């Protein structure tokens, strides 16, 4: 008899967490311990040799953290996952497992600013170069691929441009070149899009956003599909004895979760950005209602986008599922259940222009929170030109997709009419 294929909602509550072996506790126990005793010298040797599965030290694995890892792997339809202290840490562990000094990345030009800087500055200083290309044109990725290219990188929904990428087309380009497609799925969450189903090989999350969902906790997760052929000759680090782990050949020994094991035993163990068990617990609590929260985020965001589009004080509104949006077709294909809770808009400039009106709007809102995060249960608002992107001049801001008047809303779970009321009264002040 075939195993039952459980639904997404069931996985949100159960995947990765059977009752505690020791106590029968139904809720996830927080194993707040740095280390785990060995049963014997031979057990210790087997653990260090990776001949048995088990916990040694919470920098490498922890029973509370692994429940989060397995749950996110299950939600994404992946084979295995590795959690990290933040989304940026997860990305670092994933990418340094794929690329080293002398290697090359092809990435979408429209990336979250932290990721852009990680590639353009930090990885560049490690000797890993990135070519940034137009995410609307899969061909631009193909043209940028070189013999030393190790991965293609994009976001399901770009931040803050809210552009949607053609995942299947990018996967085809990546696989023709024998490299994995790495997708940051943070703004969609696996409820709205599972990139592995469209050909992605590795999925990265800032769990800080919708997965955790309550703005309490930093965390990141890397998911491996289990489908990429690491034995294709382009990844000797997977198929030859590991220098970082006494001769283990990760692809041969661990098969379709070899990438995750390598990232765990080398990158996570030696770079050290482990997720705390308590944070894993909080993120898991969030995931238990992911399937209830995401539809509401999406419904309210679309309603607010439509409301703003009909408001004479508003110059433009950007939400992928808004009729006529440049990414509407791709959004309907890849995000049929909703395009997430984030939208951007610009207020018509008065005498002092749209940027000044944007600042006035931010200062006039009553309960929308002015801060630099997205994916909280509460509605968040920011004016990128005067905050996250203020170190750039206007020309650089425009290149990054940030117009002077742009306001970004991360729509929360409050009463929709109340959010609309706050937006409306702030618009009145801003447009005065």
């Amino acid at each position, binding site marked *: 008899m075939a195993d039952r294929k459980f639904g997404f909602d069931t996985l949100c509550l159960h995947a990765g967490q059977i*009752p*505690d072996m020791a106590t029968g506790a139904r809720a996830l126990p927080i194993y707040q311990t740095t280390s785990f005793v060995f049963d014997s010298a031979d057990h210790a040797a087997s653990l260090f040799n990776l001949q048995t599965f088990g*916990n040694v030290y919470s920098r490498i694995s922890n029973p509370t953290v692994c429940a989060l890892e*397995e749950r996110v792997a299950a939600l994404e339809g992946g084979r295995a996952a590795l959690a990290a202290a933040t989304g940026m840490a997860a990305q670092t562990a994933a990418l340094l497992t794929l690329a080293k000094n002398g290697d090359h990345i092809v990435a979408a030009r429209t990336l979250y600013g932290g990721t852009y800087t990680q590639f353009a500055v930090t990885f560049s200083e490690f000797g890993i170069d990135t070519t940034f290309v137009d995410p609307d044109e899969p061909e631009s990725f193909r043209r940028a691929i070189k013999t030393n290219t190790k991965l293609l990188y994009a976001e399901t929904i770009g931040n803050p441009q809210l552009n949607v990428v053609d995942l299947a087309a990018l996967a085809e380009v990546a696989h023709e070149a024998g490299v994995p497609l790495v997708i940051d799925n943070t703004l969609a969450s696996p409820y709205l899009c599972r990139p592995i189903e469209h050909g992605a090989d590795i999925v990265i999350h800032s769990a800080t956003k919708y997965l955790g969902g309550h703005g309490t906790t930093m965390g990141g997760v890397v998911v491996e599909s289990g489908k990429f052929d690491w034995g294709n000759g382009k990844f000797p680090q997977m198929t030859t004895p590991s220098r970082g782990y006494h001769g283990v050949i990760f692809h041969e020994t661990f098969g379709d979760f070899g990438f*995750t094991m390598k990232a765990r035993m080398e990158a996570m163990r030696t770079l050290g950005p482990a997720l705390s068990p308590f944070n894993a617990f909080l993120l898991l609590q969030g995931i238990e209602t992911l399937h209830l929260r995401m539809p509401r985020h999406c419904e309210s965001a679309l309603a607010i986008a439509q409301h703003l589009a009909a408001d004479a004080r508003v110059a433009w509104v950007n939400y992928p599922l808004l009729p006529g949006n440049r990414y509407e077709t791709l959004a309907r294909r890849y995000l049929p259940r909703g395009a997430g809770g984030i939208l951007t808009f610009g207020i018509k400039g008065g005498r002092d222009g749209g940027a000044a009106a944007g600042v006035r709007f931010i200062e006039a809102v009553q309960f929308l929170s002015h801060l630099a995060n997205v994916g909280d249960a509460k509605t968040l608002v920011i004016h990128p030109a005067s905050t996250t992107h203020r170190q750039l001049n206007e020309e650089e801001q425009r290149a990054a997709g940030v117009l002077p008047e742009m306001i970004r809303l991360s729509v929360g779970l409050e009463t929709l009419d109340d959010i609309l009321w706050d937006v409306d009264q702030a618009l009145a002040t801003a447009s005065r």
Partner: protein
Amino acid sequence: MIVDDIVGLRRILSQSRTLAVVGLSANWYRPSYFAAKYMRDHGYRIVPVNPTYEEVMGEPCFPDLASAKKATDSPIDIVDCFRKPEEIVPLARDAIAIGAKVLWMQLGIRNNEAARIASDAGLDVVMDRCVKIEYARLMGGLNWAGVNTGVISARRPLTSHG
């Protein structure tokens, strides 16, 4: 019968005690050694089968299944194959001859003809799965490596040791 579901794999792993590991390497960092050592640490008896060695993991190693069977006082339950797909058909016949109950082809190995031969003789057949990974997936331990085990249950796990 080809077994590929959780209930069937659990039944095989809980009813079996002795594994003949065909192609077991004496090098500690080879996958076959990992798997055999793990299974021995979890209570299974390992009978190494490999013409290259006389002893592996401190156990006598036999050139083939027939001589392994002759020298082993307990029944051989699982024939665990770390051999190329094209070498599995004769192993299926040998497994039938020694009265094994399960023909198990390791990760990456499938041979439909061998599966049919063994199934027709009443053996359970597992293909393209690692015995160690399946044990850890279903009895506990693999989850600690962040792997999606597919196990959804509100029952406490049976074993206390990964």
